[in-house]
């Protein structure tokens, strides 16, 4: 693919930008249907309680109330991405504060909320499990008594409150640590982070006369919505059609179910459209959040700077339901060796049920937490050896032909270019001589996983409709996929329109998650476009009376005879023939499932890993320049450089947007964001109390360096960029704080309090 591209590589604004800047984009809360009811939720006041009974009479008697549902009204069905452990509404027990125990549909939202407050639920409070340490104690109360009988989609190692236990081991880590010249070790803790997509979660369901349901919702996958709702309500999948309006940001929180099952249940019960939009407090309390991690890690090195061993032990708070947690645990362990060649590595982790809201997918999927531990240890080794931290990383970086931890192949690797790119852009070498707050970190992240598809259709006038079922959550995948399609068919991007995801009409797409849409769906788009090209050439060959093999696509939607510039025919003419005379309308389709193994049993011993085939690798190196106020301990990022290997930037502007946004979200995770529990209750479920960075807290100088080490089977070489930019950020900032102050932090967020404690050894020194 050496020819100049005309669609791929353009920094186009998103296709839907105009409606967004004019305020005309429609999100879930903006939708309405005739006769629509509004839903409201009654949440559990207890972290762990047996439900003894309900009194819903007062709520039902309130004028305007159409329906009240509790666990008694719904069958015994459970959903879950990995472990089928979650009912659509609490049944028998409530397992966290805020868990829906009843739902109401009424003529307006205020009435619905008022009715929810009138429902009386009789509880028997049970002792709660509020930390994973509590959960593994010998006499811990059980969050799920029936765990053993739940269906699991992978060979889970589980029991008691342990939902999943995973091990990955290569080589002999204890012997290698014993033989190492230096070993650094530490314990690390990261805080739960809230996604805070500015759009809260919500859904709207409508039932037709035949009992078939149409469901719109804020989501990252119409197909996961369909699966979750149907599993949790016991519906055949054909009875539910899932659609999506514009989505106001999703960082993992909208991938699996939130309120969709409840809204469908209310619509089925009332026969009327029902809409339920969470308020911000509910969005904090009942959707999901980034897992808090406890990590114990040891890294060993030789005096010459060769890393030789890493041992990682992880304890993960699952929350009350499995959700994506087994995946997060497995993935974090797989990432625990970092993007380095370390011959001996072992990672073991346990995922423990607690009586808190479910933790789940959040940009980075466990990798930012594990990288915080790993990349601060790399810096400590550099410090001990007197080496430049970037030199140490470059020296140990995975090289061509090296395998990932577990044995998976790495077919493209731009890590060295990322390190050198960040080093050059930041002026690292010169600035490190003087007093500074420069910190660096490296990482890799995957893009891939599971099934996807594409349908490319040529309309009668020769224009193209692309239908993939991939939900654009604002990151720009509609635009990037249109660019890929346009490039493959050599038509201007404006000639390609993108169909909105629809479980009735779109090919399956697992979801907008795992940084996967550009890479996996892009592959399907290219393959489907190639099929369209083949059919176009076959038609054109018959029309031009030549062999299809002698024909080529020409820019602008034409097919011509190679070497004969004026012998050509337009897509319009080919498509008219196909529609009206011969062959039938031209459609190209492709589906695929990511099938490259991530584990090589000859190299690694692996148990309990939910993802045996995860994806291809993107790489990153981030440098942050951190200033620390020596009066208060408050740290702030002055400037940052983010270098990311994306294979090929399909849309460089959108790639920069991902890198910049990921940096600031990672900075919030590193410095300010922390969900705090007071007993079983979330103490700060508001934007007044949970603080995300504003313009003034974010450095304007976030400099992006795009590295392109093409993935052989990626669309035009592309791989994902959605998550990789956040993975390095907490560690880079922590290393910057250490450079500025000498203080090493092992806990996120690095609040003024914790930084000041680390700077002064916890004592008072004024």
């Amino acid at each position, binding site marked *: 693919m050496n020819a100049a591209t005309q669609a791929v590589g353009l920094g186009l604004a998103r296709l839907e930008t105009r409606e967004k800047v004019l305020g005309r984009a429609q*999100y879930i809360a903006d939708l309405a249907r005739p006769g629509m009811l509004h839903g409201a939720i009654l949440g559990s006041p207890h972290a762990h309680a047996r439900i003894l009974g309900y009194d819903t009479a007062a709520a039902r008697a309130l004028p305007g109330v159409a329906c009240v549902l509790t666990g008694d009204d719904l069958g015994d069905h459970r959903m879950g991405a990995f472990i089928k452990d979650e009912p659509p509404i609490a049944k028998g027990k409530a397992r966290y504060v805020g868990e829906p125990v009843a739902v109401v549909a009424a003529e307006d939202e205020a009435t619905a909320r008022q009715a929810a407050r009138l429902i009386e639920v009789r509880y028997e409070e049970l002792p709660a499990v509020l930390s994973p340490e509590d959960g593994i104690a010998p006499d811990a109360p059980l969050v799920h008594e029936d765990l053993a009988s739940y269906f699991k989609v992978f060979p889970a190692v589980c029991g008691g409150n342990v939902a999943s236990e995973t091990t990955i081991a290569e080589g002999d880590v204890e012997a290698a640590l014993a033989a190492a010249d230096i070993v650094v070790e530490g314990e690390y803790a990261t805080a739960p982070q809230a996604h805070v997509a500015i759009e809260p979660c919500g859904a709207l369901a409508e039932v037709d006369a035949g009992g078939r349901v149409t469901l719109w919702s804020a989501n990252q996958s119409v197909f996961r919505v369909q699966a979750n709702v149907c599993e949790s309500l016991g519906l055949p999948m054909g009875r539910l059609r899932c659609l999506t309006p514009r989505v106001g940001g999703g960082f993992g929180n909208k991938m699996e179910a939130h309120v969709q099952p409840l809204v469908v249940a209310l619509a089925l019960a009332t026969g009327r459209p029902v809409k339920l939009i969470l308020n911000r407090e509910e969005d904090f309390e009942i959707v999901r959040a980034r897992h808090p991690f406890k990590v114990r890690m040891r890294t060993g090195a030789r005096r010459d700077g060769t890393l030789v061993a890493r041992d990682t032990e992880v304890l993960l708070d699952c929350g009350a339901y499995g959700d994506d947690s087994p995946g997060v645990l497995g993935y974090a362990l797989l990432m625990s060796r970092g993007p380095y060649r370390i011959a001996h590595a072992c990672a073991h982790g346990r995922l423990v049920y607690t009586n808190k809201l479910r933790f789940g997918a959040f940009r980075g999927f466990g990798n930012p937490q594990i990288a915080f531990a790993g990349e601060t240890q790399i810096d400590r080794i550099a410090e001990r050896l007197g080496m430049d931290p970037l030199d140490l990383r470059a020296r140990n970086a995975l090289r061509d032909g090296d395998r990932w931890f577990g044995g998976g192949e790495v077919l493209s690797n731009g890590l060295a270019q990322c390190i050198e790119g960040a080093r050059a852009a930041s002026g690292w070498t010169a600035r490190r001589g003087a007093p500074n707050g420069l910190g660096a970190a490296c990482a890799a992240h995957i893009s891939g996983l599971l099934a996807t598809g594409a349908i490319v259709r040529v309309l009668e006038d020769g224009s193209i409709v692309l239908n993939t079922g991939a939900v654009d959550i604002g990151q720009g995948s509609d635009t990037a996929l249109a660019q890929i399609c346009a490039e493959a068919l050599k038509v201007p991007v404006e000639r390609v329109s993108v169909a909105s995801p629809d479980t009735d009409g779109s090919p399956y797409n697992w979801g907008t998650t795992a940084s996967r849409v550009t890479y996996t769906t892009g592959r399907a788009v290219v393959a489907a476009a190639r099929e369209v090209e083949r059919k176009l050439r076959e038609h054109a060959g018959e029309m031009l009376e030549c062999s299809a093999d002698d024909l080529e696509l020409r820019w602008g939607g034409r097919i011509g005879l190679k070497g004969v510039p004026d012998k050509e025919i337009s897509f319009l003419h080919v498509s008219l023939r196909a529609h009206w005379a011969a062959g039938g309308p031209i459609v190209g389709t492709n589906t695929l499932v990511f099938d490259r193994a991530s584990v090589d049993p000859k190299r690694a011993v692996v148990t309990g890993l939910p993802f045996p085939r995860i994806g291809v690798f993107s790489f990153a190196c981030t440098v942050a320049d951190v200033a620390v106020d020596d009066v208060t301990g408050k740290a702030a990022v002055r400037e940052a450089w983010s270098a990311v290997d994306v294979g090929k930037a399909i849309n460089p502007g959108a790639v920069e947007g991902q890198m910049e946004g990921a940096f600031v979200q990672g900075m919030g995770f590193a410095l300010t964001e922390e969900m705090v529990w007071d007993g079983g209750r979330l103490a700060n479920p508001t934007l007044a109390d949970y603080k995300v960075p504003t313009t003034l807290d974010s450095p304007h100088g976030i400099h992006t360096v795009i590295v392109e080490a093409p993935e052989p089977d990626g669309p035009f070489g592309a791989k994902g960029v959605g998550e990789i930019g956040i993975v390095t950020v907490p560690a880079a900032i922590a290393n910057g704080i250490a450079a500025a102050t000498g203080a090493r932090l092992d806990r996120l967020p690095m609040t003024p309090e914790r930084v000041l404690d680390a700077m002064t050894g916890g004592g008072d020194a004024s």
Partner: protein
Amino acid sequence: MTTQDVTLQINGRAHRLAVRLDTTLLTVLREGLALTGAKRGCNQGVCGACTVLLDGRPVRGCLTLAHDAEDRAITTIEGLGAEPNPVQAALAEAGAVQCGFCTPGMVMAATAFLRDHPAPSLEAVREGLSGNLCRCSGYRKVVEAVHRAGGGAP
């Protein structure tokens, strides 16, 4: 709860509605008048997605009671016009818009800011937009677009 009639001047047109005391301007716009450009992100005045202009100045639609907005000129993003203004055009051109949920509030805040601060510095733009949270962009392209729309020095 009882309602009382109120007349609101929205985008140059008078609307008479029966409204409860505790109903906010944001609710009236979105639910009473189907003007859904202003978004509800937090309903606590923190996120800024509901920003509208009251007598030309940006305020939180969610913290303004509909009854207290009587006799004041209310401008929503729908009232800026069918074609993009310079702020909207610059945001589009810069590729600053991602999910777009914060965008209407950002546009209203930025439009009023540039009217009051011609040719602002980058720092002034960052201060001017500090009441509008964006979780997608990291702000850099947003700030640059508004700065450019204002004709500020680079």
